[in-house]
């Protein structure tokens, strides 16, 4: 492993012990990140506003990425409320949304999940807003750990766009021909629910 990869590991990827929706123990770095192409988001299963949209978007992303998921690309959703997100609760949540293999939901010790959230930049400097966990549910990080490529896109974006972004990690050297600039009129279906970021009351 190169020094650079090692320093990225030290800086961002603590090897914490986490628990999956199948109640399996896994290590954050060794089992989930090392040598892999991944998507990372944060959620909690009782979240009613944003998480269901993001999750259903990600289900479509999983479809679009096809059989790459679970082989080349690994999807992870980390709990923002690990106390209530037991493996069983997460499993029900995953089944309800039609999540398929290759996408893992993770819980663990609250302080470990909190550390992960901060390491991976699911934060806001407004301390009151930071306490409102819904403010951390809209972001999807994607990356290729061995290549040290990391980016992010909105969980409420068009699934097609999210899937394209993940594809860059799989084939960073592929040519994507740009759209000509004669447009179709803006006609994209837009998600209706938007959670405006505000401090918790």
């Amino acid at each position: 492993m190169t020094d650079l990869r090692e320093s990225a590991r030290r800086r961002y990827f603590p090897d914490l012990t986490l628990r999956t929706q199948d109640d399996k123990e896994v290590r954050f770095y060794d089992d989930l990140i090392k040598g892999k192409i991944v998507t990372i988001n944060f959620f909690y299963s009782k979240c009613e506003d944003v998480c269901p949209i993001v999750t259903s978007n990600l289900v479509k992303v999983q479809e679009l990425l096809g059989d790459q998921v679970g082989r080349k690309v690994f999807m992870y959703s980390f709990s923002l409320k690990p106390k209530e997100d037991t493996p069983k609760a997460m499993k029900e949540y995953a089944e309800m949304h039609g999540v398929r293999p290759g996408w893992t939901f993770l819980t663990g010790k609250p302080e470990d999940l909190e550390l992960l959230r901060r390491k991976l930049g699911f934060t806001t400097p407004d301390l009151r807003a930071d306490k409102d966990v819904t403010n951390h549910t809209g972001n999807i990080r994607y990356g290729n750990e061995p290549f040290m490529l990391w980016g992010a896109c909105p969980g409420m974006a068009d699934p097609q766009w999210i899937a394209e972004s993940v594809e860059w990690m799989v084939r960073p050297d592929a040519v994507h021909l740009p759209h000509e600039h004669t447009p179709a009129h803006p006609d994209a279906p837009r998600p209706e629910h938007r959670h405006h970021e505000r401090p918790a009351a």
Partner: protein
Amino acid sequence: MYFNVFGEKVSKGRFKQMVNAFKNRQELIAAGLTSRRDLLKLGLLSASGMLLAKHGLSARAQTATTPTSTSPGSFNLCLPGNQAASPTTRAFVEPLPIMPLAQTVPVSSLSPAPTIAPNTAGGEVRAASHQAPLLNPSMFPFPPPRVYQVRQHAIQAVQSPDLPTQTIWAFDDGFHATSPGPTYRANYGVPQLVRNINALPPANQNGGFGMPSVTTHLHNGHTPSESDGNPCDFYPSGNFCDQYYPNVLAGFSFDHRPTGDINESLSTLWYHDHRVDFTAQNTYKGLLGFYCLFNQFDTGDETTGFRLPSFPQFDIPLAFADKVYDPTTGLLAFDLFNLDGILGDKFLVNGKIQPFLQVQPRRYRFRLLDTGPSRFYEFFLTDPNHLGANNPFFVIANDGNLLPAPVQVTSVRIGVAERVDVIIDFSSFAGKTLYLENRLRQINGMGPVPPQGLVPGQVECSDAFGNLLSDILPAGQGNLLLQFRVSGTKVVDNSVNPMLDHPTFYALPDTTATPRVTRTFQFDRLNGQWSINGQFMDCNHFRFLVQQNSVENWILFNATGDWTHPIHIHLEEHQILSRNRVPPPLAVEHSRKDVTQLRQNERVLLFFRFRDWLGKYPLHCHNVIHEDHAMMGLWNVQPQGDTVLRP
């Protein structure tokens, strides 16, 4: 909880210590004590490399304690972000690099030969055929009279003699490979083509950050969409894009036929990578440079036209950047998981940390550019022996657009991607040493600390003792960016003297025309991403259609409260009609702009004329971290526009 710049959890005490060390270091740099040996000798450095609290070095050191979330009167804006902790470097030991001028090549040397339609089979990635030669082949011949070929590739660069050699990304015109890249000396009426080849290393050799996939935007160019360097028109290593720059005045095909509106003349442009989602990493890694555009008035010759100081000897582009270096390896570090904005503790000018420049006691034109990623600057001219003195200079251009007349100032503030051209007269400083100093207090990615006592109810920052913190640091206690060593020998100066000659440049184009539509853009943060009108960046969707050759007003509304966003709009310049319903108070803002600072709780009204070219363009925040986290949208210029009010 408190974290250091590497995201490691630290105690509150340790965090305070880090913040103090950071401040102390700034002060020590100002005092000229920057080598490890100096510091050890004075007992200011602990064995672990941490600067010790040094009560007594200055009055400020005793009182400058960090406000915390619990101290009364402090707000989030006043809380420092993760404090950078780069290794110590000496200041003012290396000369300022001057970027070489880009050299043309014969068009016959391009293989394959350039084509009007994209040569996709030959490896070109371009969205559409070149509009300019198709529109008017006599005005815009193909191939044009000037042709360049640049390759983007990795180079080894020394950014400080106290740091290891860095692998960065550069532009190479076949003669020089540098970062910042070669400076284009372009002329109105002389179209040019730049073949831009991506020769970056494979993705697995990016050195820790950076996406070897590029699209080069000519910032403030009145450029046809397919050559604009749209964020979505990126291409990987091994491919190229031919960019046709018409170097033509806006309005040439519409209201100022046939040559365009002279009052829309541009002068200081820059080029930079604009790869969607990866602009911050790629520009931080070095993919940027200057593009200076001249005409019959702004000639580059101080004996003709407006008689501005001669280019390039007395007219010097300065690219400012703040960066972080890994404390153990000394290698350039980029915070990959930052969402808010990245602040560095090392300040580079033209690719060197704190260089010096030997100048003659005469007038110089400097083109100041904030290359980001996130910091704002307020530039002062500081004489270390007379810290109380105001040293005025002249602002002659805002965002590279010459003002109606020079404006005398003692400081000027810019955000990321903004430029100011200034004239500094060193004639009264012969034999002295001066500094270009950034005295703006900014402690996190949100933007500068707000000014004191100006707006009732506005956030103000205070220290732990309740003392209000000004947005402007005392002279000599900011970031000394560049040292000017003024020689003692008197020299000839044929350039215009703004003080005595009262020159005038271009009148501002009229802004009273009735807009076809007034659109509103709300800049906000939604669930950990940055948004415009609740929407996020998506290369597959256009938000709205601007009608070709029409006037629009845009309202930019800051829904993020305390944050300041430098908002950039491609294709056409704008003028700021009002900030919170009053015309901008600063004379330098009565100008043409391409980036407007959207400050705390502001509503800014802009005036646009969209002319000549068709196609897709973005608007976005130029805090490149926000930009990469989706604070961007695409729009499109078409013969028939729409009237979507909140696109």
